[in-house]
């Protein structure tokens, strides 16, 4: 086989192994133009940070003579501190995430996965380390494939899930993507555990617009996606006001929780474009620096 056909076959193989999720995530990530960023303080790194006057204890080698020649004192070149951060992702894979309010909308899980992978792509490009439940955080492009495999698991059997704190690296970052419609106590526990480890992060609540509007009326029997919960009503339209109140209360509680532990909380609807959530999440993750 000549070189050209070998290259081609390899390229095709590579192309086949690129699944839609990754393509979408890369596409989404590409919409955000970012530069390399630092930590805005002096430390080890590549980027120039500032000149400071040399004082006792600095090695003679570290004096920047060009700058010093311009003035009478001696200056040391400082570099920006850049350290790879560990980010661990959690995507709620429970059955409630498989809900889609309309035929033309993808289920919430798809949106959550895309967001997670796009975020991972961005972070890995920025040199961070990204991990997920079961995968310790590692840098580099190869981690994307591993992340993708971990994400593309089928839905779990229970209705509502709770985040796992096991693989979190202390003083790292975390991203929770879920609808947070289940019991809030496990979430509170997880958050406190993460806060104990010094992990700061971001909670993105992914909701379907139908869950936000509650457009149901008439005699209805509501069931949860896994079938464990059931509620029957004669006039669904009447429940709307109270449902929305409860939803708002829940969101408020989640926001309070997040604030208490120093995290960020945001609600995203699958009807909106994903860039908005990605932009927010990325900004919230970096805001701590």
């Amino acid at each position: 086989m000549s070189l050209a056909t070998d290259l081609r076959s390899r390229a095709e193989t590579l192309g086949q192994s690129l699944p839609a999720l990754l393509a979408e995530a890369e596409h989404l990530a590409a919409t955000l133009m970012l530069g390399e960023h630092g930590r805005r303080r002096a430390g080890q790194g590549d980027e120039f940070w500032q000149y400071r006057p040399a004082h006792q204890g600095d090695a003679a080698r570290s004096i920047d003579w060009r700058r010093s020649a311009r003035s009478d004192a001696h200056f040391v070149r400082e570099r920006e501190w850049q350290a790879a951060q560990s980010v661990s992702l959690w995507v709620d894979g429970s059955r409630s995430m498989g809900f889609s309010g309309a035929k033309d909308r993808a289920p919430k899980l798809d949106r959550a996965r895309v967001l997670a992978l796009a975020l991972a792509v961005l972070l890995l490009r920025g040199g961070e380390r990204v991990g997920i439940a079961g995968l310790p955080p590692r840098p580099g492009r190869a981690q994307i494939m591993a992340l993708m495999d971990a994400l593309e698991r089928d839905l779990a059997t229970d209705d509502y899930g709770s985040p796992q704190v096991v693989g979190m690296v202390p003083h790292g970052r975390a991203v929770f993507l879920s609808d947070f419609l289940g019991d809030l106590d496990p979430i509170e526990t997880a958050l406190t555990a993460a806060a104990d480890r010094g992990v700061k992060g971001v909670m993105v609540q992914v909701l379907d617009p139908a869950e936000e509007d509650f457009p149901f009326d008439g005699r209805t029997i509501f069931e949860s996606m896994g079938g464990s919960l059931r509620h029957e009503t004669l006039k669904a339209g009447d429940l709307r006001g109270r449902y929305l109140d409860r939803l708002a209360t829940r969101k408020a509680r989640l926001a309070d929780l997040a604030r208490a532990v120093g995290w960020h909380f945001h609600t995203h609807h699958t009807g909106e474009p994903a860039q908005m959530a990605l932009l927010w999440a990325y900004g919230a993750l970096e805001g701590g620096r």
Partner: protein
Amino acid sequence: MISGLAFAAPALLLGLIALPILWLLLRAVPPAPIRRRFPGVALLLGLKDAEAETDKTPLWLLLLRALAVAAAIVGFAGPVLNPVPKAEGTGPLLVLFDGTWADARDWQRRVDRAAVAVADAGRAGRPVAVAVLTDAPDAPDFQTAEAWAARLAGLSPKAWVPDAGWAKALPEGDFDTFWLSDGLDHAGRADLLAALSDRGAVRVFQSPRPLFALHPARFEDGAVQISVSRLPAGPETEIEVIARGPDPAGIDRELARAKLTFAAGEARAETALTLPPELRNRVQRFEILGQRTAGAVSLTDDSLKRRKLALIGDGADKEGLQLLSAMHYLRQALAPVADLVDGGLTDVLAAKPDVIVLADVPRLTQTETDAMLDWLEAGGLLLRFAGPKTAAADTGLDGDTPLMPVRLRQGGRSVGGAMSWGEPKSLAPFPETSPFFGLVVPEDVTVSSQVLAQPDPDLPQRTLAALADGTPLVTRREIGEGQVVLFHVTANAEWSTLPLSGLFVQMLERLTVSTRPATPKAEDLAGQIWVPERVLDAYGQAVDAGETAGVQGSELAVALTEGPVAARPPGLYAGAERRVALNVIGAETVLAAAAWPATVPVEGLDAAPEQDLKGGLLALALVLLAVDIIAALWISGRLRAAGSAAVMLIALGLGVPEAHAQDDFALTATTGVVLAHVLTGDPQVDEIAQAGLAGLGDRLRERTAVEPDPPMGVDIETDELAFFPFLYWPITATQGQPSDAAYAKLNRYLQTGGMVLFDTRDGDMAGLGGATPESETLQRIASGLDIPPLEPIPNDHVLTRSFYLLQDFPGRYTDSSIWVEAAPADAELSEGMPFRNLNDGVTPVIIGGNDWAAAWAVDQSGLAMFPVGRGYAGERQREIANRFGINIVMHVLTGNYKSDQVHVPALLERLGE
């Protein structure tokens, strides 16, 4: 039963019992809920419904469903409003039809009603017989109902009255009678009713529809008198009577129409219809509009026709000697009954009269003779009277003269006078072959002088009337289709007393000289066989009589007074010389309503007909069920999706025809300013015009506030011109002439403020002398337009300053002069103004030949299409041409705004004064 309501299948009404059970079922069974998978159910747990609403069907939905089911059940039970009562009884049933012309107004309804009665009798097992009273009396044939049901369709009404002999033709034995009467009282009805009542129960069916009868038209006081009777005499109504006859091409057509109004409670209405004599002579029948019976049709015979008669005498009548004048008696006899034409013979022949009477005119010139012979060949009647001049003339001395029926002896003879032997002669009875046969000769008619005929072999055949001694008094010869008749006496009383007697008038009538009275009397009809030409059926249709036998005159006279019978059907009867119409309704016929005794039930006179409610109720049930579907969907909350689909369907269905209603042309023309050019038929010229106006539009858009839409081509024949402020008309040599409608449109356009720019495009040739083909075309086209006087454009015309200040108006050429509406003669320059105030308005036309469209034309990319001039001067010329175009459009859109005084200071400044 509820009064007026009956049920065809009342057993089904038992289903209504099931309604309460249905109610209970529906109440007990709630509507089905929807199942939804919803993760947010975690938030719903613990919420209770606001109202303690039952999970049963809501009450209104229940009522709706119950109503739908009830409507369906009642509908299937077949309710009928105002049902037809059924007959009870056993024994044979006789169904009698009157079958007269009065039945023809709703014959089908009667047959249907009879079919229902026959079917009922068949179901009850009774033998049935059907008889029609206008047929010849015959014992009715009782058979099974099925046998008669098939024959019912073949019955038809007849145009005469029922036969009176039916009372005797009825068989013995008992039977019930169902009599479908026409509502009129005919002779013998009471006897028949008595005979039928003896044999069993009698029920009568009458139709409530009104009956109209048209009496024969008469001619009185210069108009045709028409009268109509009606039964019953009800509220005020109006009917129309039309006169039908052949038009000059021979096609049967409506000739005239008259309206008659019946006052409330009146049974008779009359009106007079004036017709010109030509139309009157052509009328063949009168009909009442909308009625299809023989009683509404009245045939006209010759009684309405008036002959056109020309009386030509022997020179001017001397005053004071009227009673001696030959024409006096003729005029007295004929003026009331014929149209007299006066004049010389050639003039009279040109008027094509029916009869020409020559009183003592023995000789005619050759041309007159030839003309007269032609007229005779075509069927005229020449009536000649003798006199002294005829006696003295030597006509007939050597051979037949063309215009005398016999050869005359010169001199005549005198009898019973002072100088002669014998008594004045009286008339012999008329021979059978003579048209006068049957007329009674009064005793005081004597003849004292006459001209004599030569005793030729064919004299007896030509003699119509003779004196007692056999001498012919009236002779006749046929020429072609016409005839010449000679009275051997004078037309006045000099030679005989014949003109003084009534016999004279009758003889003239017999000779078809004058019109007849309305009803011919028995003696007029006697002695001839009258053969029917056309026969009326009961519906008033005239059919060809075919081989129907002729009728004696005496019988016809009887029928004229008493009405037609089977042997003498109504129609048009032709005799030897004239035609008589026998109509169903005579002049004196009165429509009498049949009076039934109280023991005889009469049906059919109620106002309300039978109405079947089944269809309506079932439709109501369907509609309610459809509403129920929507209601059920709404209850269960599924309506949003279904509703939006339904609303979309309805909107689609209703929205489709909306688009067609708009006139796209009008819309494109009026949504903005559109410059238009007239389509000339030459595609190249049209293209240049379009491009020119497009270029002008670009310039306007760049430089002014006017932003025109793309230009449109206008066809002056078909398109509306009022949408366009300005029409550019390029003239080609081959342009067609606009039609009259197009000229009318153009004139209206010019009068209401439009402007046309005529461009003959021959500016390079026009100055060289001679008319170019384009200018000839322009003259041809403009000849039909209403253009005011024109003059070459003056220097201070508003076009020179309406946007730009211009002095000349070039297009592609510069030479041609521009013509605009002439200024009024009194327009003068006032003090301090740089221009005169000319026309208060827009000039309707601008005529020139500088080919402006080519100068304005730009192509798609905005570059000029045609070269103008050469080099820089050419471009300058194009610029001036563009400026001229802008000036024209501004002038059109703003009028003579720039002639306003307010612009004067600025203009003075610009003009440098």
